[in-house]
């Protein structure tokens, strides 16, 4: 099955695909660790301590909230409105133009019982920083795609790692860690054992991470195909001058998608809508469907329901890959397991690096054989 030559080739693949991505994977594991608990950390930072001004009181409708948000940002236009699940808070994103890029956007949260601004979390900036580092290293789309490429290299290193696991284990029972001969051998066995028991989890998290790095091109493809198709009949018509009621639009959309949870509204001319529509996005209620979004289209001028559009398969695939990457879908025990598996992955990465660094010394000075020779000889 495996000749000495093929073992050496797989070993080279394992070595180089690992070396390419190890530094970035160390960063991703270290930043990913706190991100697993971002909800709990937000609560600790005061998300939980905030209380509405008039608990149980009547709620302002979405038009009234929008009015407050726009009064707060004179001259700006609404881009998005999103809704907290666990408290009566509406978040409004505004910008100078409907197509304003991210850095020009302004985000503010409003208490629906009073219309007052909800102060941003103290210290929330740290988590924001960690998330940004984890997502794109502050480099935008190129950074995201680069980390996606690192994820692919990581996946290749795992697959080749499984192959080179074979010769090492020919004469050893599962779980062997040889502690008597050298620390190098002990770390080799530890690397092999921890690597092989985490293969499934690490591949799932790695590959869903790669899918997540493609979110921008995926959403762009959806816009170029489905949204463009919806916009075509309106080409050349003047832009919307008077915006319909947002509350009315949400109510209409809710009727069309009963049983789903309101997630956000995209205003006309922005990156998630057309020039002529308000798009009202809903998500499902189960762990499986929570990240699957479905938009209802509302005519931005008349407020009439235009229809419901199911997302294409590639957007659904993106939505499904999110929980499997974040680990936030099975309560605190699953998050703790996610964290523990991340720590194990850090040990695999660290021991791999140690074995590679020691390898040079092993070949030149001491009598220890290099790993590929060791593996090949076992064949």
């Amino acid at each position, binding site marked *: *099955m495996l000749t000495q030559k093929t073992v050496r080739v797989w070993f080279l693949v394992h070595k180089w695909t690992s070396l390419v991505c190890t530094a970035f994977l160390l960063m991703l594991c270290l930043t990913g660790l706190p991100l697993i608990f971002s909800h709990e950390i937000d609560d600790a930072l005061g998300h939980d301590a905030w209380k509405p001004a008039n608990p149980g009181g009547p709620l302002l409708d979405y038009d009234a909230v929008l009015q407050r948000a726009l009064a707060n940002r004179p001259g700006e236009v609404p881009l998005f409105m999103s809704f907290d699940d666990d408290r009566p808070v509406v978040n409004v994103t505004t910008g100078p133009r409907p197509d304003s890029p991210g850095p020009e956007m302004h985000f503010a949260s409003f208490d629906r019982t009073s219309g007052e601004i909800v102060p941003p979390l103290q210290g929330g900036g740290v988590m924001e920083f960690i998330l940004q580092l984890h997502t794109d290293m502050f480099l935008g789309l190129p950074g995201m795609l680069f980390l996606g490429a690192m994820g692919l290299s990581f996946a290749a290193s795992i697959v080749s790692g499984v192959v080179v696991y074979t010769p090492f284990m020919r004469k050893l029972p599962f*779980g062997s860690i040889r502690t008597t001969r050298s620390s190098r051998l002990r770390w080799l066995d530890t690397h092999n054992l921890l690597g092989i*028991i985490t*293969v499934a989890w690490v591949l799932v998290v790695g590959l869903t991470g790669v899918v997540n790095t493609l979110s921008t091109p995926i959403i762009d493809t959806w816009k170029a195909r489905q949204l463009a198709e919806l916009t075509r009949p309106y080409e050349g018509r003047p832009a919307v001058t008077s915006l319909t009621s947002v509350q009315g639009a949400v109510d209409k959309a809710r009727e069309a998608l009963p049983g789903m949870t309101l997630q956000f509204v995209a205003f006309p001319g922005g990156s998630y809508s057309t020039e002529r529509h308000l798009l009202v996005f809903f998500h499902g209620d189960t*762990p*499986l469907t929570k990240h699957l979004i479905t938009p209802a289209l509302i005519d931005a001028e008349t407020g009439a329901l235009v229809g419901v559009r199911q997302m294409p398969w590639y957007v659904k695939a993106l939505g499904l890959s999110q929980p*499997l990457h974040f680990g936030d*879908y*099975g309560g605190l025990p*699953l998050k703790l397991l996610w964290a523990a598996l991340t720590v194990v992955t850090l040990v695999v990465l660290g021991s791999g690096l140690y074995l590679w660094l020691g390898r040079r010394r092993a070949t030149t000075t001491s009598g220890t054989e290099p790993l590929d020779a060791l593996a090949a000889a076992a064949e």
Partner: protein
Amino acid sequence: MRRPPQLVRIFGVPALIAALSLFGLIAALIGDGPWDAAGWLGVFAPFAALVWTSQRRG
């Protein structure tokens, strides 16, 4: 020599751990309550293997 039994010997336990892990990842995704609990057990498989092998090593 290189007969299937040896592959099974080398990859039997790892394959079982991988299968349990994948089952756990999917179970927790399907529902809450008992599904979550099944998910925790499945995703715990790698650690169960660690405990088992460390005890066997003595």
